[in-house]
């Protein structure tokens, strides 16, 4: 019997690590991957709660999250390819045109 909090704490840790990755990595593809990490952490929490509450709604939501992540990854990577070709670099610091 694994207590549910263990899963949730793990989810929180993974989420935090995802944030750290997002803040500190320079490659834009890595940034995307950190977002996927955060989404996965959230999925873990959903599944845990579905287990705790005894309903399957959480898992349905996980499915939806996965689908959305897939769509997002597809389009996002497409945009990344375009930008990378344009800016000749994958460094997110170079992609700062939308500023003051």
């Amino acid at each position, binding site marked *: 019997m694994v207590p549910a909090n263990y899963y949730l704490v793990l989810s929180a840790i993974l989420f935090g690590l995802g*944030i750290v990755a*997002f803040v*500190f990595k320079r490659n834009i593809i890595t940034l995307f991957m950190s977002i996927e990490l955060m989404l996965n952490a959230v999925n873990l929490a959903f599944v845990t709660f579905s287990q705790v509450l005894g309903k399957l709604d959480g898992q349905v939501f996980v499915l939806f999250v996965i689908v959305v992540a897939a769509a997002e990854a597809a389009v996002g990577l497409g945009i990344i390819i375009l930008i990378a070709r344009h800016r000749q670099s994958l460094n997110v610091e170079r992609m*700062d*045109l939308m500023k*003051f």
Partner: protein
Amino acid sequence: MLILKDLILNHLWIIPLLPLLGAAINGLSGLFGAKWPNKAVNAVALGSTGLSFLAALECVREFLNLPPAQLARPWVQQYFTWIAAGTFRAGFDLQIDHLTIVMLLVVTGVGWLIHIYATGYMSHEGGYYRFFSYLNLFMFFMLILVMAANYVLLFVGWEGVGLASYLLIGFYFLKKSASDAGKKAFIVNRIGDFGFMLGMFLLFRTFGSLDFVTVFDKARELPADALGQFGIITISCLLLFMGATGKSAQLPLYVWLPDAMEGPTPVSALIHAATMVTAGVYVVARSHILFTHAPTAMLVVACVGAATAFFAATIGLVQTDIKKILAYSTVSQLGYMFLACGVGAFSAGIFHLMTHAFFKALLFLAAGSVIHAMGGEQEVTRMGGLSSKIRWTYLTMLMATLAIAGFPPFAGFFSKDAILFSAFQHAPGGQFLYAVGLVSALLTAFYMFRLIFLTFHGQPRFDEHHVHVHESPKSMLGPLVVLALLSIVGGWLAAPSFWGGTDYFSAFLSPVFGAEAAPEAATALSVAAEHSLEINMAVVAVLTALAGLLLAFWLYLRKPGSADQLAKSMRGLYTTLLNKYYVDELYAAVIIRPLVWISDNVLWRAVDAGGIDGAVNGAASGTTAIGDRLRRAHSGNARSYAVWVVIGAILILAVIFWPLLKPAAGMVP
């Protein structure tokens, strides 16, 4: 006539409305491009004022036909409620009582005569329709003033006549001195009005209402303030009197009246002699119940009146502009009226108001006739020998001068005598006031006859070839004659008892002022002793007038040039008087310059430009500055955005979870 019974009494608004219509019609006629012919303007203006006069007469007839019980109280008509706020109600209420009747007849009657005169005098002037529009507007406001049944409506009329006065003084607005004079009149009046308004506020606070009937009924019950005590009623009366000094040109707010002579002569006659300037006297007389409860205020009124009478007379001694002489004479005579009110002889004051309206209007109109005859010349030093050339003008003006000097049986004698008699018996200080009044009477007689002799007698001091002296048209002479007749007979309404006549006038006004018992005499006098006192005083008054006449005759006719020698020998005094005691310059230096300086440097620079603009612009620039700082958050750096998102998320979570995260029992990890 049964259908028309009490027609006017029930529809008092007709009386002021008629001139208002005239003003509107004449005023709007100017909007439609094509100039109305003068005849049309005349018809409207004279018609409306004449009808108003007839309506006033009818109103008087109806009022006097009321059953005696109703005659003892004012007849009040309430038309609509103008202001209703909390317990305060100010309505458009008009009232008629005996005092109103006197004022009404003077205003409409003399006003109508002056309108007729003006059709002749102004016939060659531009802006004809505008002149009569303003004149009718003035009539409307003046009628509102005298017919008002509460202080608020009276104040509306008060301000309105001030407006009309400004418009008319500055009628020749292209002339800088005229427009300046108009502004000066309005501003100086405003200073007085400030006091008037404070007085009104105080009255409302004390009595809870500003209706005359309510205030006076309540005031009758109150104990009188003692002499020297500054109770509420005394202070209210002093404040109201401050307004009266502004409007009626007493010390120290008289300075606008001489300058107001820039206006056309009919304006000077109507507004600055017969009607508007008497509004102050009217207010004091109307509030006589309040004033009799405030002996300190009465004393102030009497002293200011006497002082002004003397002061203005001294200035009038040496002036050379015919209208300025008459202006200072007006200020002086108004002083007499206030002196009368101050010693408690209210009906004597109103009587002098009425007679003064007759002879002063006549003097101004005749002066206008002289100016017209001389082709615009106003300096008496350049006139002379006109008596044979403009007979009618000369004769009527002579009548008026005899009246103002106080010769019997002309009107001025009776009214002035009544005032001096009451002043003499006043305690305290009655003798002193009497002395001042008597000296002023001497000066009055002197400078008025000086005016007559310089203008009409002696050798002509102008080039007879250049100036074609001609008599005025009938439209101008007619009113002169009527007013001359009134100056002669007007005084017979109040012949004092020792002449065997009855004082009709005081009896007429007794429902308003109470039986005019002789003011408290310093010593108890029996009837016979009073009679002999009256006779003595009358003789003294006549002798004084005669002395003034003879002095003027000696200095200007018998030995012409002696006046100039006298002036040279008393150079300093002469110059001071000629420059009106430098009062205008004093005001300019002490009051106007500092005020302008403060407005310029403090109010404009510091408060407006610095403070208000600074605050508004500062808010804008502050916002811009803050925005400038904040926009640096948009670095384009996605990762710092993420940090901000996290910070926000933590804050939200903190807000949600904090109360729950506090150490609480029962929560098992």
